[in-house]
């Protein structure tokens, strides 16, 4: 039983990070029909930007700020202006393939400029355990969970409770009408790219102490987050959150109670089942897409 509790906490912590990354997926899809197959690499890169900042002498807190800012510039602004905008007019598929190419480019660049070997990465949450209901739970898991929940809560508040959020939703749901009533649609789309960049940088900061900074660490993450987004519902932020948590927990429980050898297969089987029986995702809306 204590084992189950440990597994749930560890699964939720991993799942919360999948959720952060999956939310980015759905945001980009909703506002600009971009399926970003480089999303995993987007999570890998900020850790290296932070390491580079520390390498030139910045303290950890400053490195975090610089890393997040640089990520927003590179993975938000530059990504949109240099890759998405020029490719968008050719349709969804060429853009998706371009993001795959970008993923390879980022990986190779990191391998070239840093190293192919993993590096340790400091944790913003102190290591150690605290006791909850008589169970030793790692502070790192709890910290990751809390920070991820805060980020998601902040995002949903922004989307649902502020004028800016309403404008973003309007731009996503019906850009033509939004433009007529005076919503600066282009700026709203850019904003979602910046939010996505912030979310992946945060995910990077949280997951890298556990995964280690390595050029290939985005592959697993990107895949898990993609599955999470589809399972939860590609057109719903709350769907992506639920999907992320579900995949995280499922992965851990499968490893413990099914087979460590087939753990990677279980989320895939789940994904196939969802696509077969509920293609819009667990919490997704049935309509295909906007406009």
């Amino acid at each position, binding site marked *: 039983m204590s*084992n189950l509790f*440990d*597994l749930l906490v*560890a*699964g939720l912590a*991993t799942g919360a990070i999948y959720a952060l990354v999956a939310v980015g997926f759905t945001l980009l899809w909703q506002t600009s029909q971009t399926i970003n197959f480089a999303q995993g690499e987007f999570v890998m890169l900020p850790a290296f930007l932070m390491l580079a900042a520390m390498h030139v002498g910045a303290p950890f807190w400053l490195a975090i700020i610089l890393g997040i800012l640089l990520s927003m510039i590179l993975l938000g602004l530059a990504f949109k202006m240099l890759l998405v905008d020029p490719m968008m007019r050719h349709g969804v598929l060429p853009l998706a393939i371009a993001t795959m190419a970008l993923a390879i480019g980022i990986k190779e660049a990191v391998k070239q400029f840093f190293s*192919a*070997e*993993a*590096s*340790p990465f400091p944790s913003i949450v102190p290591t150690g*355990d605290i006791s909850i209901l008589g169970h*030793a739970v*790692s502070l790192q898991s709890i910290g990751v969970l809390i920070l991820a929940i805060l980020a998601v809560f902040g995002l949903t508040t922004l989307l649902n409770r502020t004028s800016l959020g309403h404008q973003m939703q309007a731009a996503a749901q019906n850009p033509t009408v939004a433009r007529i009533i005076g919503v600066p649609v282009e700026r709203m789309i850019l904003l979602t790219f910046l939010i996505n960049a912030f979310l992946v940088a945060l995910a990077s900061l949280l*997951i890298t102490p*556990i*995964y*280690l900074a*390595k050029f*290939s*660490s985005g*592959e*697993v993450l990107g895949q898990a987050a993609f599955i999470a987004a589809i399972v939860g519902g590609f057109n719903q932020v709350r769907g992506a959150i639920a999907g992320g948590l579900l995949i995280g927990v499922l*992965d*851990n*429980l*499968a*490893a*413990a109670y099914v087979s*460590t*050898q087939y*753990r*990677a297969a279980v989320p895939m089987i789940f994904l196939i089942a969802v696509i077969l029986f509920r293609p819009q995702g667990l919490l997704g809306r049935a309509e295909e897409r906007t406009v």
Partner: protein
Amino acid sequence: MKSTLLVGALLTAITTTGAFAQTIKLADVAELSGGGATVGTNWKNGIDLAIEEINAKGGVLGRKLEVTHADSQSNPGVARAQVQKALDAEPYVLLGPGYSGSVKVTAPLAAEAGITQIMGGEAAELTQAGNKFLFRTSFGQQSSMPKVAKYIHDDMKAKSVAVVWVNNDFGRGGRDVVIKELERLGSKVVADLSTEAGQADFAADVGKIKAANPDAVFVYLNEEESARILKELKRQGVTAPLMGETTLIGQKVIELAGDAANGARGHVGLTTDAPVDLIKGFRDRFSKKYNYVPDHNGLKGYLAVYMVKATTEKMGKVDSKAFADALHGLTIKASEEPGILMDVTFDQNGDIDRQSFLVEVVEGKQVVKQVLPKVK
């Protein structure tokens, strides 16, 4: 004018060939760039050091050694092309590569050319394909795992063992041998856990180990995954002693795992920290020449050249075709050939038998705790 040039060219050709006849040519193909650059550079430097020493003392049977280095870029495809090129120049012996994957694709080329290949790979299968020209410089899994199992059974006194392994050729090869040996000795395998290469989350695996409550845990993963599982084992409070191979207690693992690596033990075939005077001497000479402390790959490269020297002197002639036959079954004693550093015996497959070391991580440092004797 033309004829003068021709004569000149001919003369040059003759003198060059003459010079070559005096030296013994070795060819080295190693991972000098790419992911395995550390492996290949250490290997190359070890070779250069050994050749420098041997030549300073008059060479082998009065002839100097000479080596050409080629870069495999840590890529089996490039390694194959480089080895083919090296073999075309008809070397006396081929040295390298260090990566098992590169050895696997190049060994048939060397065998076909009838050239002996002394390499750094450690995968079990390499010497099991009946290749009569391939020799190791370090243990393959079939030599190291029996020692590991014996230590777990005899010294750790473990009646029950959890085995965690990475699901690839390397991991499965080691797991198969160690489980067979453990069961033969009478230690029960209570958990047999396969993990994925690149796996990040070990909470479930460690949970299973905890539930099995073994007397010892054998961890056989790549270095990064080793670091992650060490952290998780510490976090979940697993107190059973941890045993592994070089991949569990390597310097990289200690750097990545921090405190969690303390107490982990591993079997190491070659280490420059070994309490052996000849190895200490090697380490000093190497550090003086290259300004850094070599890893075991530096030792392997160094030993490869001394294998060439000892075998050639044993034959009493420089005979490329008879070399492999002479090395099969040969025992080289460090008392007779100090460059070989420790007594070593080669069997009919090209596998080696040699003493090895039991290393424990103490306060972030590798400490040699025990010398494990030769098997035979």
